[in-house]
């Protein structure tokens, strides 16, 4: 199927060319179901020598190290690293709050998921795109290979906000749907009044290499508000009446900084990679610079 026109909105040709040279990296080497380009701890057939073991009857004679036999007069078998595939998950927050910003945080999250998913597809990794509001009974398809790029893009295009599923519930459902290990990037604004901590703990239990990309729009980071306002929460309709003043804005900045710092500390303590992303930062810069430094790509 030809690629959707939406593809060009998420991934420009220049970005694609840049992403082709990258690969996803994880600190943890996980067992994949299929043979991929990943090095795994498992011993298998590959060109990369891993270790020696004693020969036992029935082993393949081709892997006997004859040099060792000449030296030691004993038979040893070479063991090689098994090349396995990596599971890459992108979990996108699709709450109503993600529709704000220019570009919207949701679009930004899609771009990020598309970029990293493309990298995974190019490297033969298994890529799966999920959303927070995705029902438990409806798992996302696993995609492999570059040929499935269009399917990934189509899936991303169909993602829309609206159903304000709490973060904890959405992450919990994800964990129930996906029992495997791998890399997870959670793209969210963490603007859940019930808190993000419980949800992230679910991810810890999954033993995933978790990356939390905390996306905020420029208007949320430095709001340009004036006058007497009645702020209406787009998700729950909650109202906050404020009279904008310099002290109030200064206090907001302090609250935001505390919130960000709290999330960073929570994630860092639990081995979760945390990155705050302003939607003003181009995705290619985020991927090639920030995520590279974090060790997600190389």
């Amino acid at each position, binding site marked *: 199927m030809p690629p959707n026109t939406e593809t060009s909105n998420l991934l420009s040709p220049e970005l694609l060319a840049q992403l082709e040279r990258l690969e996803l990296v994880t600190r943890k080497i996980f067992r994949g179901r299929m043979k991929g380009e990943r090095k795994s701890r498992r011993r298998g057939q590959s060109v990369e020598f891993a270790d020696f073991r004693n020969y036992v009857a029935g082993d393949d004679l081709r892997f006997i190290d004859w040099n060792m036999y000449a030296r030691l007069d004993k038979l040893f078998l070479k063991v090689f690293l098994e090349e396995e595939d990596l599971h890459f998950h992108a979990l996108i927050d699709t709450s109503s709050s993600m529709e704000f910003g220019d570009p919207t945080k949701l679009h930004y999250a899609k771009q990020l998921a598309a970029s990293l998913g493309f990298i995974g597809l190019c490297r033969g990794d298994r890529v799966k795109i999920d959303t927070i509001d995705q029902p438990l009974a409806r798992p996302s398809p696993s995609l492999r290979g570059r040929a499935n790029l269009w399917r990934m893009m189509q899936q991303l295009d169909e993602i829309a906000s609206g159903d304000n599923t709490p973060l904890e519930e959405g992450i919990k459902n994800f964990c129930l749907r996906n029992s495997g290990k791998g890399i997870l990037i959670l793209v969210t604004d963490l*603007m859940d009044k019930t808190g993000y901590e419980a949800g992230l703990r679910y991810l810890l239990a999954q033993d995933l290499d978790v990356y939390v990309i905390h996306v905020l729009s420029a208007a949320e980071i430095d709001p340009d508000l004036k006058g007497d*306002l009645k702020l209406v929460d787009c998700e729950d309709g*909650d109202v906050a009446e404020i*009279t904008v003043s310099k002290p109030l804005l200064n206090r907001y900045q302090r*609250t935001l900084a505390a919130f960000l710092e709290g999330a960073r500390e929570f994630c860092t303590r639990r081995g979760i990679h945390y990155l705050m992303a302003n939607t003003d930062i181009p995705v290619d810069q985020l991927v090639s610079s920030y995520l590279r430094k974090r060790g997600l790509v190389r």
Partner: protein
Amino acid sequence: MRFAWDLLSPLQWAALLAVPPAIVLLYFLKLRREPLEVPSTFLWTRTVEDLHVNSIWQRLRKNLLLFLQLLLLLLAILACLNPSWRGTRLEDDRVIFLVDNSASMSATDVKPSRLEDAKRQVSALIDEMKSGDNGMIIAFSDSDGARTVQSYTSNKRLLKRKLETIKPTHRKTDLKKALRFAAGLANPGRNAYDETDAAAADAMPAALFIFSDGRVSRSPEFSMGNLKPTYIPIGTATPKNVSIVAFQSAKNPEKPGQLEAFVGLRNFGIEPAQVELSLYLDDKMIDAESLSIEGDSQAGAEFALENVETGVLRIEIDSPDDLAVDNKAYAVLDTTQRARMLIVTKGNLFLESAFTTDRIKKYADVKITTPEHLATEEYKKDAADGTYDLVIFDQCAPATSVLMPIANTVFFGTIPPGDAWQADETIEGPRVIDSEPSHPLMQFVNMGNVLIGEAIPLKPPKAAITLLDTDLGAMMAIATRDSVQDLVIGFGLIGRGEDGSEYFNTTWVRNDPSYPVFIQNVLSHLGGVSDESSQMIHQPGQLVQLRLDTSSKKLRLKTPDGSELEAGRGRTGAFAFTANNDIGIYELVDPAQADTTHRVAINLFDEVESNIAPVSELQIDEHVKVAATTRGVERTRREAWKVLVGLALVVLVIEWYIYNRRVYL
């Protein structure tokens, strides 16, 4: 400061007071918030929860604009009420300050002195001047002491600085010249005799403030014109002052070698005063006396001095009072000034006897000669050199005007040579109809009953002063000739018959008391004779003339304040100088005579000046008096509404700024 309000009726007050609560109510009621959808109120709720307090005070604290609007309303209400206070203000845009710095203003009944108090009041009035008002300061004492300290300026600082330069003097008080200065612009000059003459400039009315105790020597006889005078008396109503009004010395005729010093005192206070007097000779105290003087009365004291020939006497009142300058007086004992007179007559017993008394001989050298002497070289030389102080021509005259002496002259029965004086034909029996009693020569001289025989009606020069007028013409006149004066009397004292016999030509010399008085006046005014009864009193600011027997043309003058000046010999041959502001001894040092010193005593001796109680009215002229005011300016109602409106505008600007900048407390 007392405030006054234009009070409103209860209904009006109710309406006004209802406005602020209405504004508060409306402010909160009308507070609409613009709804704005945001991704989440999560952070905003956290942000505002600290600020969200239900107390009214916290809500109000956020509403700075409300406070400013209420303040603006309050200022507007106050401005409408038109508050005012009783203040002072100068109403005129041109103000002239006349500051009296005469001797009486040195009185200390007002601390630190009257002059300083006057300056303080002037300074306060200068502060009352509005922007653009012009002020002038004139200091005055006697006629020579009036000066413009600062001409018209709107620079208040300059006025105050110049005000401080006014120093006290020991001079008398004469208001006329100061008023002339003040009237310079207010009453532009015009010829009163020519109706077609227009004023040189437009009249500029001015408010005139006179700071003085009002003790002027004479009424200025001045027309105020466009000047609006205000007299501010300086000083307390009942000051205490005992002054020395006379001090002179004389040889005791009964005891040769003894000198007597007479002191005249006057107590101008209303309370009796105990006075301690100290007499000094050349700064050494030689005598003292204590006496008491009743209030508003006089007293005298005498001191006998043995074996004192020369020196400077100084009498001091040791008891302090409110004016110190008249507590000292000086007298010089070695008066060396002698007048030199020449009488040219064929023989006139009445004239000769009048000028050759023992008394006159003590103070004047009198030479009597005949008319033939006028043709001699000796006379010509004396006439040209100004050898004489006074030359009397009795029915004779020099041949030509060139031979007129450089001296004052008196002509009896003839006129001086030359074209200046003219006379008609001889007449008989002119009747005296008028005289000039204000002239020093005619002082205490009453010739109303004098009969005159033969006389020549005079036609004196233009600027001459007619001293005696008859029905047939002027009979006595005096005119200035260069720097001397010529007194011409149109009749002789005696007549001569054809046989040479003498007869009375006038009853004036026969038992008329005015004749010797007239002679005395001639001696004092024209002859320069001074004795103990007619010792010249020299006062500060006056011109002093001395005839000294010296060839020097200039003498060094040392004044009491230590400065050294020069006194030159004038055309009359006398040395003249103007006594400055201080009483004391002035010394003339003659370098040609081994620095011989001639001393002159300058004393105040002015009862008008020593009577320091401020007057309640200042006499400007015969009909105009200016009553004293207790304050220099009119009390006026100073309105504050302009200030309030200005403040309201400032608040409005602040409110606009805050509204635009969204700045809150």
